[in-house]
């Protein structure tokens, strides 16, 4: 017979033996970075259609028409990855860093947290912030916070991150940080610049708020952030199999139904920038079989009628037939390869932010300089390798339809359109935020055309946000969702706080 205590011991086997229940910060960071990037890529399939980076191969697509698919988690991956793949893992990372004086991990963790909230609020507006991660098993309603509160929290987290990243005491160690950091391989300075960059992004989002907006702050944040392309935040995937490859890689097959938009083709083939052939076009976009660059118009799809010859049809970002699984070992191009890299924040992006801020402030000289640096920076991006010759680069930069001779000639359109090009294929949330700030205006986004007919639930309005993840909120957090109007069928067209004056 077993004695009582030995019986107790015999039964003490309910701790999961397959994985640890406590790990150090270094082991938590890499998955969070991966899933943030994968989350953007996943939802980019939907946002990319809203912002006309690309369109769906078939006609009448709901997302092309600024709609959504009811009862579906589509458009909820960032939601999933911030709350779950980040979530408590990130909280534990921060706690471990704080408790063990790993100030570098603390800084990176706080910056990642701020970045997570920024992505989430960019996509969805009101989010669960103050009630997130409450571990009370009986708590079932998780209330939403206003975007105003979220923005304040992002700034607070960035500032705390910068403070932590300034520290060199405790257990700060480049070697240790490099263990978990797949973005910057442990370079604290770059993380500090990243935090400043995020401050610039979040501050510039409020440009429509005349009372709250301070362009000088934006400019100074940009000046404290990335100094060159070498600072770009990029995630390079192993790309060896389906689990560690870029979501945009041919091995994942996710982009096969998407064709580049007519809008991006117009921006690069000299239609909008009159006659200026963009040297980046052959590196970023895909020509049809006959060598001509074509794009899809939202909602129209690619006709497969016999009257449209196969070699004049738009192809997918890997150059393959639309909606056809790529053959194994398809290489892909630009960021559409198995390894990426996938940009998360770039020097060019921040220079365009600076240019816009200076332009809005009225300092056109600063705006022009930053605008030029932005284009230069993108043209020399390592994403293009040696694909753009110095001569092509010079020709483009000296073309006055691209870069005007004088600061006075610089237009907001040029800044926003060049920014759009530089962010095409990765900067979905930033691009979408810009478009929403300018009400998708073709006055700013020359030749941008909203869909002719919106999705049936839109009640004639363009999209403003993704609906919260269906299986998280529409089924299990209805009370909280109802308070922000989330159950309205046109909730996705409800404007966000940041775009309002």
């Amino acid at each position, binding site marked *: 017979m077993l004695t009582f205590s030995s*019986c107790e011991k015999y039964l003490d086997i309910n701790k*999961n033996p397959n994985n640890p229940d406590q790990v150090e910060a270094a082991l938590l*960071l*890499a998955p969070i970075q991966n899933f943030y990037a994968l989350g953007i890529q996943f939802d980019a399939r939907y946002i990319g259609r809203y912002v006309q980076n690309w369109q769906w191969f078939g006609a009448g697509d709901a997302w092309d028409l600024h709609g959504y698919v009811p009862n579906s988690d589509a458009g909820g991956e960032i939601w*999933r990855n911030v709350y779950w793949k980040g*979530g408590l*893992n990130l909280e534990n990372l921060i706690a471990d860093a704080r408790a063990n004086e790993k100030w570098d991990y603390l800084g990176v963790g706080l910056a990642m947290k701020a970045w997570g909230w920024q992505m989430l609020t960019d996509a969805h507006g009101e989010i669960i912030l103050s009630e997130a991660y409450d571990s009370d098993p009986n708590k079932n309603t998780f209330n939403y916070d206003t975007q105003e509160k979220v923005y304040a929290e992002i700034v607070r987290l960035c500032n705390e991150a910068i403070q932590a990243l300034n520290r060199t005491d405790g257990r700060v160690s480049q070697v240790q940080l490099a263990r978990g950091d797949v973005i910057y391989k442990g370079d604290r300075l770059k993380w500090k610049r990243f935090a400043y960059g995020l401050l610039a992004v979040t501050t510039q989002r409020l440009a429509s708020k005349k009372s709250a907006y301070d362009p000088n702050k934006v400019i100074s944040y940009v000046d404290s952030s990335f100094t060159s392309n070498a600072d770009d935040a990029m995630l390079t995937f192993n790309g060896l199999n389906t689990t560690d490859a870029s979501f945009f890689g041919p091995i994942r097959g996710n982009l096969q139904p998407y064709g580049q938009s007519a809008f991006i083709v117009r921006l690069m083939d000299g239609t909008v920038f009159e006659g200026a052939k963009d040297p980046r076009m052959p590196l970023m976009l895909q020509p049809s079989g006959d060598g001509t660059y074509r794009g899809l118009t939202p909602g129209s799809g690619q006709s*497969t009628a016999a009257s449209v010859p196969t070699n004049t049809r738009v192809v997918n970002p890997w150059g393959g037939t639309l909606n056809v699984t790529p053959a194994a070992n398809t290489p892909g191009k630009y960021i559409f390869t198995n390894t990426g890299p996938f940009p998360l924040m770039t020097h060019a992006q921040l220079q365009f932010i600076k240019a816009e801020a200076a332009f809005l402030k009225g300092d056109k000289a600063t705006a022009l300089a930053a605008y030029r640096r932005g284009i230069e920076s993108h043209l020399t991006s390592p994403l293009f390798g040696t694909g753009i010759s110095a001569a092509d680069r010079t020709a483009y930069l000296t073309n006055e339809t691209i870069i005007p001779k004088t600061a006075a000639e610089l237009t907001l359109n040029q800044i926003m359109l060049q920014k759009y090009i530089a962010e095409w294929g990765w900067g979905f949330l930033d691009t979408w935020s810009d478009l929403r700030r300018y009400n998708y205006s073709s006055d700013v986004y020359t030749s941008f055309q909203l869909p002719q007919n919106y999705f049936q639930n839109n009640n004639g309005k363009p999209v403003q946000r993704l609906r919260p993840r269906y299986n*998280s909120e529409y089924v299990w957090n209805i009370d909280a969702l109802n308070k922000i109007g989330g159950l309205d069928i046109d909730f996705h067209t409800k404007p966000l706080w940041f775009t309002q004056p």
Partner: protein
Amino acid sequence: MKDQLLKWLLLFVLSGFTAFHTRAQDRTITGKVTSAEDGSAIPGASVVVKGTARGTNTDATGTYRIQASTGQTLTVSFIGTQSQNITVGNSDVVNVILRQEASTLNEVVVTALGVKKEKRQLGYAVTEVAGQDLAQTQRDNFLNGLQGRVAGVNIATTSGQPGASSQIIIRGVNSISGNNQPLFVIDGLPIDNRTAQSANFVAERNSATSFANRTVDFSNRAADLNPNDIESITILKGPEAAALYGVEAANGAVVITTRKGRSGTGRISYNSNFTVEQVGRLPELQRVYGQGNNGVLQSNVFNYFGPRYPENTTFYENAENFFQTGTGQRHNLAFEGGTERYTYRLSGSYSTRQGVIPTTKYDRFNLSLAGTAKLSDKLSTESTLQYINTDNIKVSKGANSFLLGMLQWPATDNMSGYLDPATGLRRRVTAGNEIENPYFDVNKNQLRDVGNRILANIGLTYDATNWLSLTGRAGMDVYSTQYLIKYHPQSNRAQSFGGSLDQATDNNRTITLQYFATARQKFGKLSTTMRLGGALYDYNYKVLSSRGEKFLDPEFVSINNTDPLTQRSLSRLEQRRLVAAFGDVTFDYNNTLFLTVTGRNDWSSTFPKANRSFFYPSASLSFIFTELAGDAGLRDVLSYGKIRASLAEVGKEAPPYATSQAYENQPTTGGGFGYGFTAPNPFLKPEKVTSFEIGTELKFFNNRLGLDAAYYRTRSRDQIIRDLRISYGTGFILKVINGGELWNNGVELSLNAEPIRTNNFTWNTILNFTKTNSRLVSLPNNLPEFYMSDTWVYSNIRNGVRVDGPLTTLTGNSYQRNSQGQILISPITGLPLTETNWNVVGDRNPDFVMGLNNQFNYKNLSLSFLLDFRKGGDVYNATELFLFRQGLSKRTLDRETPRVFQGVLKDGLENTASPTANTIQVIPYYNNAYYTSLADENFIERDVNWMRLKDVTIRYALPNNLLTRTKVFKAANLYFTGTDLFMITNYSGGDPGVNATTATVGGSGGFGIDYGNLPLPRTYNVGINLTL
């Protein structure tokens, strides 16, 4: 009667204070009680010294031991036999042969802990099925033979593929998300009936490659058993019956007793049969309109909304040609024999079966050695040892499966040419992404499991004195199965990563230990039996799995043939332990009134320390009221009458590792850890199931007509709800929580009759009737709905339950309606709008099910058949919805007819007094969006009835005079058995009895959802039985 009851009560109270003790006796008489019919030992026979209170029962080997003196009379009795009185003479050994009373069914049943009890003592429903009856159906999986034979038992087969898993549910669903399948017990000890989960595979870690228990299926492990090794199966239906087995048996228990051989002349029996099987019903397709959309020819799509086929189009019978005639054979060889002290049985069985789908097969080899021994006067033992080897090849099911592909393949193309003769590569018929050619799927992809299993079981009984015996049993269930899922590099499932191979090896070790003391004592007319014991169950399940992609050689099947850079592996260990103490007391007053009280305390490793220990009791009462009737006249009509009642509670365990959180390894770039889906719950406590049952057993006309009726009601509280979805704001996606309440109740009737009994001709019939009801009373956190995500297989209908509804409902999205209930129509398209709420749209629970079993014997010829009836209950015909949306359903043939969908426009006026009626005309031929706009619930077929011939057997026994002349054979017979030969149903699809998921899915599972499933095949067997 009143006096008797009072006396009985007094004795009952006194017995609590009376210590069991023996009295000084003259000498010990021993002996063996055997059956006159076949010489087998009779355990549980009563031996009483006439005129005294002394009595005992025979043990498992039929042996008794009692104190008596010369001249005293021993009364030996056993239910169903004629009692014998024997005067003790000079011999110390008194063997007794009991002769059966005419036409009495065997009334001893095996109950919990392997204890044989007279059925009259039991205060709850049990049903016993003879192993021979199941073996006779010639099914690989003996569970499938149980359908219709036992009231209250429902078997749902996953599909008609060889080796498909089967789900068994006894008396409805007690747990909305957890396992509802009963415990399987062999010779007193539990064994594993796991169906491998797709979570065992590395592929499951990535949603892009996961199988979600839908597209793959593996056998349920109880199917490993050889039906020919089964002596009998007792179904313990409720927690009353199973209270002594503990948490595992909250859903009832299937108690299997194996054959152990009989004493007497040694016998060799050989049984062999050959099988052919044919595919069951398949859906019918339209062949008027060809490929395309909106009336426009598009040869690269697999929609059939194009123009009419030109006249003289050549069509291929792709579906008919695809299937083959399945074949199989079985061989069983058994040796048995023994002496009074020893019996043994050695059997070997080999069966092989090729299914109706090319490449599928199920092979099984069973070797079994069993025996009993009486080691001394006091010590006896019985043991079994089984070795099982299985090899099963299946193909995919559900979405993207061969079946849907076969239906969808262009009828204008000869599907059988799946390889391009020039290149040897997969032949494609379009330039685009195309569905997988089913021939390619079954020939080039593979789904296989190969298992080895050893079941060992040893029991020891020590008869310490004539009133006390000690029993101990130890068992071991050790198996290892290798699973393989291979997708060819050119298969749709793996072409973007150059092929994939997932393999897993599981290792199960279940060790069980049980020991108890049994004390018997008799006080006048009151007999008591008391048992006190303990048990220990130790489960250890380990899986090692790996996955590789990018095949080097496209055909070679091995992980070594994949690119090393893509290889990933995973290890999973699951441990669970349970320690228990239990006891029960039975009071038997004058063989007329029986009261049994049980109590059990379990300590389970799956709960936090504070909630680890839990106690639950049960009480049951059986009253043979016909014993009180002295009037022989009444007894001629009502020969036996019993009423019974019981009340019980039982706990249910939590899944392992649910109380604390562990990280999971992340396969993304740079590696690392992150939390899994489910939030930990450090406050989990056992789920409580309480049950009440009342019933009666009546036998009329000297047992020629019998009725067994039961009503039960089960209430389940503090449900352990697994995979409850929550706001991701928690940091998790799912949680495990106690909460929610449900009940289910039901009526079971079992009627048996022997309408004809003459010397040459007999007819026996049994009718089993089952009706169940259930209700979800509450869900935790005021949640409105709970659904099983694995059952959400096609479009928006799933196994979802809502508060105040039954547990077997389907939820889905209905049309949007205005305040007057009129359907809302889109003013743009003229098509109906669908809402996004999940309402109950159907209930899969049948009104009742019935099994009718008949046996006719005429001289040497016998005929038996089992009919299975079902009345009512909805089935979601997702296959038909799929065909409808692809333009293949015959329901789409009127597509050229213009129509206006009746409803009102959603134009802002819909809720006013004068909504705008829809007048927008749609011609589906030009607008096949029509077919996707119709609500899914139109494809729930209501009140599906069926009558199936589950099995039929004709058997001819060669006459004895012929056999005696051969001097070799003792018995020989020839037989034909057919299974699932026909079904009459109002269901329009294939087989309404299949299951959209595998048996591993909890709650009410995926039955009643038909999506891309192979119907049960029609099977014909011919065979011969020989006994030497």
